[in-house]
């Protein structure tokens, strides 16, 4: 029996990021003061469009890149001061595969076990376990270059789990997969999550964060926009979202004013030819919205009512839709 560990709230956080800044030698600034924590056993998602700083964050936390400023600790160790300690305790699944295509799946796992100095019996045992978990048994002795995208992604994750890490980094785990493989991957991630393993997941799929994450942070242009559980974030919008599509884009400003005047509407946002109106009680506000627009002679193509999604949370926080990051919407040329 070892000594009882002192009770310390900070010890429960396997990732602590404080005021992280990153500017690359090329002058590109990827992170502007990002802070967050991830608790042991938690699935935490960094959600944001391409270029938001997700991968830069992961590269700093996995010791591949040094922060320009700020502090990051993983599994209790500083990523800059004690990188070897960090590397022993993490699994990293990068966006670009990272498994060697010219050797077999089993040989990749063997090499990973050797690098982490697993005793041979432990290595054999763990490899068998992971091959079974990810249903890779049948293809284990084939060259990885013959694998489908989904198979390769599963091997990537198995590689990350070989050292039994305290933290697993999954950088865009389902990007490039078809919807069916994506659903399978989500199931598998849920299956090995828990058991004390914390997962930091980055994604630009709202649905993915919604499905998998216990907690998530929405980041945009290197900064945290908001943070909480998917339910908390959606709850923060209080009420429903009425989406209105207009036939004529030119009517948008006028429509925004008219809809804003309707009783019960708390906020109106626009994105392209669409208006998004937040309402405490959507069902009773819809007739009034339709009436107000008709009176002003504005044609409606479609109107729908929904509970807020993460997409609406994002729109509300950043003022631009998730699928169209700011600069693209501002500059159509």
């Amino acid at each position: 029996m070892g000594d009882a560990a002192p009770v310390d709230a900070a010890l429960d956080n396997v990732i602590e990021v404080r005021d992280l800044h990153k500017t690359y030698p090329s002058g590109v600034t990827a992170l502007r003061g990002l802070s967050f924590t991830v608790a042991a056993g938690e699935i935490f998602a960094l959600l944001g469009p391409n270029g938001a700083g997700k991968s830069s964050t992961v590269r700093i936390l996995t010791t591949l890149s040094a922060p320009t400023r700020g502090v990051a600790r993983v599994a209790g160790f500083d990523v800059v001061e004690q990188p070897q300690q960090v590397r022993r305790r993490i699994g990293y699944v990068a966006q670009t595969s990272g498994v060697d295509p010219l050797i077999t799946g089993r040989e990749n796992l063997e090499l990973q076990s050797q690098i982490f100095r697993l005793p041979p019996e432990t290595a054999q045992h763990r490899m068998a376990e992971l091959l079974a978990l990810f249903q890779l048994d049948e293809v284990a002795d084939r060259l990885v270059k013959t694998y489908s995208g989904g198979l390769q992604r599963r091997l990537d994750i198995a590689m990350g789990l070989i050292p039994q890490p305290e933290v697993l980094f999954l950088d865009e785990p389902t990007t490039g997969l078809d919807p069916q493989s994506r659903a399978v991957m989500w199931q598998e991630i849920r299956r090995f999550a828990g058991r004390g393993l914390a997962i930091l997941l980055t994604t630009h799929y709202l649905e993915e964060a919604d499905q998998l994450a216990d907690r998530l942070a929405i980041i945009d242009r290197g900064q945290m926009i908001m943070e909480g559980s998917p339910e908390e974030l959606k709850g923060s919008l209080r009420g429903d979202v009425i989406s209105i599509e207009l036939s004529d884009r030119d009517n948008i400003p006028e429509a925004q004013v008219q809809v804003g005047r309707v009783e019960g509407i708390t906020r109106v946002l626009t994105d392209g030819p669409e208006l998004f109106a937040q309402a405490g009680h959507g069902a009773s506000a819809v007739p009034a919205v339709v009436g107000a627009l008709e009176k002003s002679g504005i044609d409606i193509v479609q109107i729908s009512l929904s509970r807020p999604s993460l997409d609406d949370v994002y729109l509300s926080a950043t003022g631009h839709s998730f699928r169209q990051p700011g600069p693209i919407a501002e500059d159509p040329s």
Partner: protein
Amino acid sequence: MDFLRDTWYLYLRLARMTRRMPIFLVLSIMQPVLWMLLFGQLFRVVITLPGFGADSYIQFIAPGIAIMTALFSASYTGIGMLRDIDGGVLDRLLATPVSRSAVVVSRVLLAASQVMLQAGILVLMSLALGARPQGGVLGLSLVFAAAALLAAALAAISCGLALITRRQEMVIAAMNFIILPMTFLSSMIMAPGLMPEWIRAASRGNPVNWAVVVARLGFEGQISTELALNLAMLITFTVACAFFATSAFRRYQQGG
């Protein structure tokens, strides 16, 4: 020691990849054999030139071809490194506690061992064609050592260029740019006595020539101060190249 164990594991990975390309292996083994035949035939008469100072061109050129093989085989090692960079293999390795030096050293060792294999085939071939190594086991070891050292040096340069430029085209262009001049500014295929004065002068500062001198004197069994001096310069050059590759690697890691 972690460095040695990791080097061995990573070396095995590369060796496996190579073994799975039987055609590559056949081509690499055939390459020195083919050169030996072609050069041996084309330049057969040069030994009759006054001042050449050798009795058999095969005898003269065998150690030279061993060094030529090292040049041409090891110079493109960086391309494999680039494949690891582009495929994310390098980053995945760097996120593990693997020894950083082992990542580069394993590649350099693979290049050196491939060249040793080629040199072995070449020596057997030259024996069959009538060459007679006079230096015995020590002499032949010197041929192998010269080829392996030069191969390691060029593999290190190639990896360093790959890490700095990150472009396959740049690695190929830069290596092609230096290979041929280094070949011809040496006594690889021509006796020093018949070289123009300026080439003979240039060859004294050419690492390829140092390797040729070590290999040829070893093959001929002329263990001398000249051999020792050239071997020392060759070793220094290889160490310097290793240093270049290591600092390029450090730069790569800091650039992330």
